């Protein structure tokens, strides 16, 4: 198993270099000088307004110093090399905006996004697996068709619409006030509250974002579940199990379900890397201080060190997703042995 993980890590190197290189080139070759943009309103605006020559020299010098501070005056390949080298010590550089270390900013916000995504992942699996089981055991029935169609419609429901509608109609505007329109906790939230009060407040705030982040996943997953179960249901060992007189529930839940969980586990690998991307819209709509919001604001402010770091974190999450799903796979299906799998 250790060897397998090592092999995976090795295979991941080119992908990792590719992702970081692409994000590096996009951010560094983009039109516009981050120094002048970031100084905008202050120094940058002065340059644009055409201030006097000697003052202009001072401004230029300040901009040059700023560039030197962030190493932006060096050739591109040197900058990338330095960035990679720093990465090995988990140093993502400093934010352009406030000179704070990027790693700290990310660590500060990571728990929020992870919490949001784990809850939504749980919800997706909790809803989609029973739905899929129901659809498979009642295949082509009216209920199956309704389930499939509903999941399909939910899949097509744009998250920007669902989110905005939730805020307009449920978030305390002119209509219902069932849920808060944003944030993670109430304004008067304090750690001294009793535990259940704190949990209640958090759950109240997280409910809408988590549901909105999840509903799109129901369709895909329940459908995979349905297809997987139908496939297993048609196999010989199921007939044998039924023939030897096992009750239908034991056949379904012990024999079939376990075997059809295999594809569900592999899907996990594709869900993890989408975490940051998927959170951008939800975190922006609900003003949740997570990685998605951080990324969105960094992109708008051209805070490139943060943007680069987020790409890197996603790349690592991709690797993590693949690893976790492979390990889970061996748990669900002991026939799969590490290292000998050649796909």
């Amino acid at each position, binding site marked *: 198993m250790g060897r397998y993980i090592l092999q995976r890590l090795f295979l991941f190197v080119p992908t990792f270099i590719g992702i970081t290189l692409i994000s590096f080139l996009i951010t560094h070759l983009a039109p516009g000088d981050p120094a002048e943009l970031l100084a905008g309103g202050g120094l940058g605006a002065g340059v644009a307004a055409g201030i006097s020559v000697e003052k202009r020299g001072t401004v230029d010098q300040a901009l040059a110093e700023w560039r030197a501070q962030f190493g932006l005056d060096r050739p591109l390949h040197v900058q990338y090399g330095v960035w990679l080298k720093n990465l090995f010590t988990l140093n993502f550089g400093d934010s352009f905006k406030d000179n704070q270390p990027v790693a700290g900013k990310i660590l500060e916000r990571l728990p929020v996004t992870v919490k949001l995504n784990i809850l939504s992942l749980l919800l997706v699996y909790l809803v989609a697996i029973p739905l899929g089981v129901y659809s498979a055991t009642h295949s082509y029935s009216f209920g199956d068709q309704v389930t499939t169609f509903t999941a399909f419609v939910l899949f097509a429901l744009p*998250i*920007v*619409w*669902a989110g905005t509608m939730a805020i*307009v109609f449920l978030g305390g505007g002119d209509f219902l006030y069932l849920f808060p329109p944003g944030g993670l906790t109430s304004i008067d939230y304090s750690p001294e509250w009793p535990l259940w009060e704190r949990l209640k407040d958090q759950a109240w705030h997280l409910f809408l974002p988590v549901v909105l982040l999840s509903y799109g996943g129901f369709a895909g997953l329940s459908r995979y579940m349905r297809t997987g179960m139908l496939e297993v249901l048609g196999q010989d060992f199921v007939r044998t199990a039924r023939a030897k007189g096992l009750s239908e529930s034991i056949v379904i839940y012990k024999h079939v379900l376990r075997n059809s969980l295999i594809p569900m586990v592999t899907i996990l690998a594709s869900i993890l890397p989408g975490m*940051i991307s998927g959170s*951008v819209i939800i975190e922006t709509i609900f003003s949740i201080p997570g990685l998605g919001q951080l990324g969105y604001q960094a992109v708008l402010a051209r805070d490139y060190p943060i943007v680069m770091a987020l790409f890197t974190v996603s790349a690592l999450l991709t690797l993590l997703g693949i690893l976790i799903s492979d390990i889970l796979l061996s748990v669900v299906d002991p026939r799969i042995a590490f290292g000998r799998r050649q796909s």
Partner: protein
Amino acid sequence: MAVNRAGRRGYWSHVWRQFKRNRLAVGGLYVVLGLLTIAVLADLISSDKPYYMRYRGIDYFPIFRGYLVKLGVTKWPPELLNVNYKELGTERALFPPVPYRPDGIDLTAPFADPSLGHWLGTDKLGRDVMAGIIHGARISLSVGFVSVGISLLIGVSLGALAGFFGSWVDLVISRVFELMLAIPTFFLLITIAAVMPPSIFLTMAIIGLTSWVGIGRFTRNEFLKIRNLDYVTAAVALGVSSRSVMFRHILPNALAPVMVSVVLGVAAAILVESSLSFLGIGVPADLVTWGSILNEARSNTFAWWLAVFPGAAIFVTVLAYYMVGEGLRDALDPRLRGSEG
């Protein structure tokens, strides 16, 4: 060749027969065609100019004249330059059903409720929402088609190369596919869109450039399958050039599953475009799109019409394309049912 063509027509008519059986898919197709009509005729449905008017004893056809002016064939007569046709004092005028421009600012009527005057209300600048949605259809659909066209071009070329030549070409291109799969596409998209100057054409290009992996992988797999069929071997043995084998012999047979990705891709591109303009990235600030109207609802939660209608337009469009795509998938090959899009 004649036999071949007849055979192919037989295949497509079979597909059409299968497709027609699926009522949801046919319904989706009607919606798609309806949206296309709205997009093409947007100027005739919603415009602040009348179709026809009589002014100071002369007959004008301002909407149609507008087209000619755009083409540079003619000019506006000075008395009609930048006028408000509704307050012109025309003797006779026939206005379109939605007599507003999508960007026609009317500061006297901000946040007007839906009423007979403004069917779907107005936004904070008094722009008519109905006009915005009708003209937004044009933007959304053109973003959908152009960006899918771009991703089709890239995906089919790379997939065909990888699947046809195999060996190291496949190895390299497959690594590129893996890379594109591992990269957080939406984040990549907003990064590129945010650092570039806002432009709808650039947005189309960026969406196309970041969404071709699905098509590429499908094409590759189909090419891998078809390359080893006897008729391809025969064509190669006859000395047909690689390019000709790829594009004339294999590609037509590989297109079926790719077509499903194309239809679903249009929906995905429309979704992405609306998300981008919702976030205020990539499209110019003064351009009214479905996403940009929706965005206004976020900060003006009392104006429910700004949330309900543009969002519904996105939803209906996306759902219709999904239905057509799913129907097409089932019609093309029942074995593809339930496989990854």
